[in-house]
């Protein structure tokens, strides 16, 4: 059944907001980590052979934060779908 125009717009806006959050959190931060590994490999720090400890600590904190965030967005999306 087709949704009324305003409800359709509302659903689209909510989807856009979730997509926006996912793009920034997963897209940008994953890109930052990959970009840093490329830079580090090209220079004196070799991530897979001589990674500085601070890098490891930082990745160890950052990756769980990224995945928790993406999981939280996915959960919110599922809950919204249930209510529609």
């Amino acid at each position, binding site marked *: 059944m087709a949704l009324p125009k305003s409800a359709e717009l509302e659903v689209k806006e909510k989807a*856009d907001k979730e997509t926006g959050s*996912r793009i*920034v959190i997963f897209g*940008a931060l994953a890109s930052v980590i990959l*970009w840093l590994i490329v*830079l580090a490999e*090209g*220079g004196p720090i070799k991530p897979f052979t001589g990674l500085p400890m*601070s*890098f490891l600590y930082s990745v160890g904190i950052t990756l769980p934060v990224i995945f928790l965030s993406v999981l939280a967005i996915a959960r919110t999306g599922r809950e919204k779908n249930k209510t529609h």
Partner: protein
Amino acid sequence: MIVAIAIIAELGAFLIAGIVVYGLKKRYGWTVASFFLLGSILWTTPLETLGISTGSYSYSTFAGSLFPGYAGYLVWIGIVPLWIEMGWFIVSASSFMIFHDVLLPRSKTLAAALFAGLFAVDLDLMIDPVASSNKLWVWLGPSLSILGIPLYNYVGWFLLIFLYDIIIWNTVIAFRQIKVLSFVERKLFSMKDSVSSVSLSKKLTGFLFRMFVFEILAIFLIKAASVVL
């Protein structure tokens, strides 16, 4: 070969900043995305300029290495490479969204801003050792350091992201009063006690005023940290 790293770093930062702008636009719309991006440049330029001109660090390792007159990077705002400011923007926008929108949406502004500041410090623990070992920037002068990175640098990251987060949340996302500034703002801009919806020009004035006040506070605190540490 080594100058290739500088070019990859610069273009990579622009590319990732583009992803962040697109995400911000989808989440909040063009107005907020534009405030966030242009505000980041205004917010970081004075402090970066001060750091370079007082000899704390330098961005000119690659000067002259690509072609005569090449300043070390392609795009500059005064004496600061634009990609450095895009780095601040990427970190501040990502931290902002993670804590205000996703992980702590029901928490107080200060708590979300505090976590955003700490998360930014965590990200810099990855960024700074890689960048400085590749000579993308070089730390000058003696200071208490971790892996060659001065401790006051991390104080700076925390303060800049923490304060900018508070400004964006209370000014750009919705116009809310900041208690410590409310008396002055009521007098200067004839603002009422409760302000949730204001005109774009008033929002812009408030944004610039708040950035100015907090920038002075940040410069003072970071300078104090650099003297103590």
